[in-house]
């Protein structure tokens, strides 16, 4: 425990070798999310004097007595005027061990799409619960979104323990109910922590009020949770972004395929196939931003050189010849609709998958999921409204190499775009929504053979 204090003592002068953790917070209005975020920022010395002074000035102008820490996070004029949070904001803080990018997702009306946005890049989600209220509808929705987006780690922060006399049975009951619910949707890893964000119990410093709790504080857990993914379980995927051809005197024949490895590892000598053409060749070389290397892995940006002179361009996908994704023009996916304009059957859209954008037609809307009531299905909805989560069947104009989202968060995800004005309409995840959907006949833990989720 002292190590946390020491690392904080080192302050945000964090080591250049530290790793990066992206995480998202979810919590409804009165759960104390702002207090928790404020405490993490403040206690990691990430709120600097001039920012605090600006908040104090603004609070005073509004006639408030003390500084309103919500003003630290509500950055826009309309947000301050209306006292609401409009949008996901990203915040940055650091300890000596790790740098953090926090997707601060507001708990208000446009709730689901904001959490989906924040969770799409998160490796960990913190779900806040008020100890007095326990698991409520909102909590189930948070858990469902984390499960849907397949965020690898979930933290249940049972807040306001000071208001329930720091009683262990209260915490244990909430933790058990939440963990059971999350497991039913296939969330592989839940860490439950009893906290008081206001009093500071178990956020950064261990609580002296809860001797019965032997686990990590929130910050300690954030600092130590593994950020890397099990590469052995991930099929290598390389979406070609851009063809580098200097055609200079020094590099007359250089033809490199630039991209960011979406998953897995590539080695010089690997037999690969280029999709959708299906032609095969081997990896002749890998340049890691100008330097040749023998191997590279996700999420490195590199340039692949191929042994044969194939026709490869932006939008193609390079994968191992023996482990390529399925190719097809029919996509069945779970989607979150993001735009006020609803999504209807028969609509013509653009589908952006990796580095490729193709035309697509919305063929069917098999069902809509109600996250608030135990994942009830509404069959054959007429359309998906903003914040709706449902299943969509699409027909694409060209074949796409698409993995199930369960296999890869990057090669299994896509956007639907309005061809008329370019608006981002819908976020899509190929395949079924949950690892073990509620109501499935399989006994709990049946999916454990897969070893959880691999990204």
């Amino acid at each position: 425990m002292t190590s946390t204090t020491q690392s904080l003592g080192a302050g945000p002068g964090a080591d250049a070798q530290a790793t990066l953790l992206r995480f998202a917070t979810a919590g409804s209005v009165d759960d104390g999310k702002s207090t928790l975020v404020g405490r993490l920022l403040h206690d990691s010395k990430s709120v600097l004097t001039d920012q605090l002074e600006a908040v104090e000035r603004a609070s005073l102008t509004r006639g408030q007595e003390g500084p309103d820490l919500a003003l630290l996070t509500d950055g826009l004029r309309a947000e301050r005027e209306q006292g609401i949070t409009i949008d996901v904001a990203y915040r940055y803080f650091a300890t000596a061990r790790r740098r953090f990018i926090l997707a601060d997702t507001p708990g208000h009306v446009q709730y689901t799409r904001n959490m989906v946005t924040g969770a799409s890049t998160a490796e960990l989600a913190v779900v806040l619960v008020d100890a007095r209220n326990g698991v409520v509808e909102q909590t189930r929705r948070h858990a469902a979104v984390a499960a849907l987006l397949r965020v690898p780690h979930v933290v249940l922060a049972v807040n306001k323990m000071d208001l329930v006399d720091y009683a262990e049975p209260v915490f244990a009951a909430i933790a058990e109910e939440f963990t059971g619910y999350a497991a039913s949707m296939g969330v592989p890893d839940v860490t439950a922590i009893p906290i008081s964000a206001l009093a500071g119990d178990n956020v950064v410093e261990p609580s002296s009020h809860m001797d019965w709790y032997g686990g990590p504080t929130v910050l300690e857990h954030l600092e130590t949770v593994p950020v890397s993914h099990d590469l052995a379980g991930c099929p290598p995927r390389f979406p070609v972004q851009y063809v580098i051809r200097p055609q200079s005197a020094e590099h007359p024949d250089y033809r490199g395929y630039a991209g960011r490895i979406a998953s897995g590892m590539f080695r010089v000598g690997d037999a690969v196939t280029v999709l959708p053409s299906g032609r095969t060749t081997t990896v002749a070389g890998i340049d890691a931003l100008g330097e040749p290397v023998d191997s590279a892995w996700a999420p490195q940006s590199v340039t692949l050189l191929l042994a044969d002179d194939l026709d490869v361009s932006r939008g193609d996908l390079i994968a191992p010849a023996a482990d390529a994704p399925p190719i097809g023009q029919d996509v069945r996916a779970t989607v979150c609709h993001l735009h006020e304009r609803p999504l209807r059957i028969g609509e013509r859209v653009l589908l952006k998958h990796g580095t490729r954008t193709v035309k697509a037609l919305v063929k069917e809307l098999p069902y809509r999921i109600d996250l608030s009531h135990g994942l009830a299905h509404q069959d054959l909805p007429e359309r998906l409204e903003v914040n709706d989560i449902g299943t969509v069947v699409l027909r694409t104009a060209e074949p796409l190499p698409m993995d199930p989202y369960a296999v890869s968060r990057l090669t299994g995800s896509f956007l639907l775009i309005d061809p008329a004005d370019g608006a981002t309409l819908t976020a899509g995840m190929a395949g079924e929504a949950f690892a073990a959907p509620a109501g499935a006949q399989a006994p709990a833990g049946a999916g454990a053979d897969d070893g959880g989720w691999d990204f």
Partner: protein
Amino acid sequence: MTTTVAHPEATGSPYALTHLDALESEAVHIFREVAGEFERPVILFSGGKDSIVMLHLALKAFAPAPVPFALLHVDTGHNFPEVLDFRDRTVAAHSLRLHVAKVQDYIDDGRLRERPDGTRNPLQTVPLTDAIRELRFDAVFGGGRRDEEKARAKERVFSLRDEFSQWDPRRQRPELWSLYNGRHAPGEHVRVFPLSNWTELDVWQYIARERIELPRIYFAHEREVFARNGMWLTPGEWGGPRDGEPVQTRLVRYRTVGDMSCTGAVDSDATTLEAVIAEIAASRLTERGATRADDKLSEAAMEDRKREGYF
């Protein structure tokens, strides 16, 4: 292996990237996305550290080919001579194409008027948006970071601007995974921020790791300065000092580089990269709080300028 792998014990995996490698990889991905999707991108280049890091990343992203973008500098007419010199040497060293839009030209022919407070920073917006329109740029890279300011914390990596270059924070496109939507109508353009997720300290650590050269005013040096609004400003033709603002020689450095009228120096004895990094890590002020007068004009100064087309 050029990529530094953190010690397995610290990260749980030999494959975890360090935070600098992760940020670098993300920024390179953003540069390549723009190269793949747009017709006429341009990099805003001021000679300041963030734009220098941007250019360095662009050079790495397309190596061994040259950077497929031109540079654009909005010259307020009140730039530090050391920085203009650095700008021109950089452009020559990499055989780049530089466009310069000059605030002074606009003042000279009456299209813009000097402000009573003498600062020209807000005046940059008009020459910038004119240059984007006249030269038909459809993607404009900026070095803005979300940690700089709370309006910027809400900024997307790809930020759509209308034909007036306006930013509407309520109509931003949601941005998920690393799928950036660059669709835009003719006349519209997209501002792109590859350093969105970097902090000031990340930028300095990366500069140190990559041994990137910077204008010397970022390091402590003796300079004639005078105090105004709690900042050390450099005297010059831009309009300082006034009566009652005595000039003195101090050991200072700059944390940001911008218009001389509103960019302040900080007292510092940090003459090396290591000393600068140690100083920033210990500082209790943000870089803008320490050195930018224009952000203090109102609570929403940055947001208001961004709405009009500023970065």
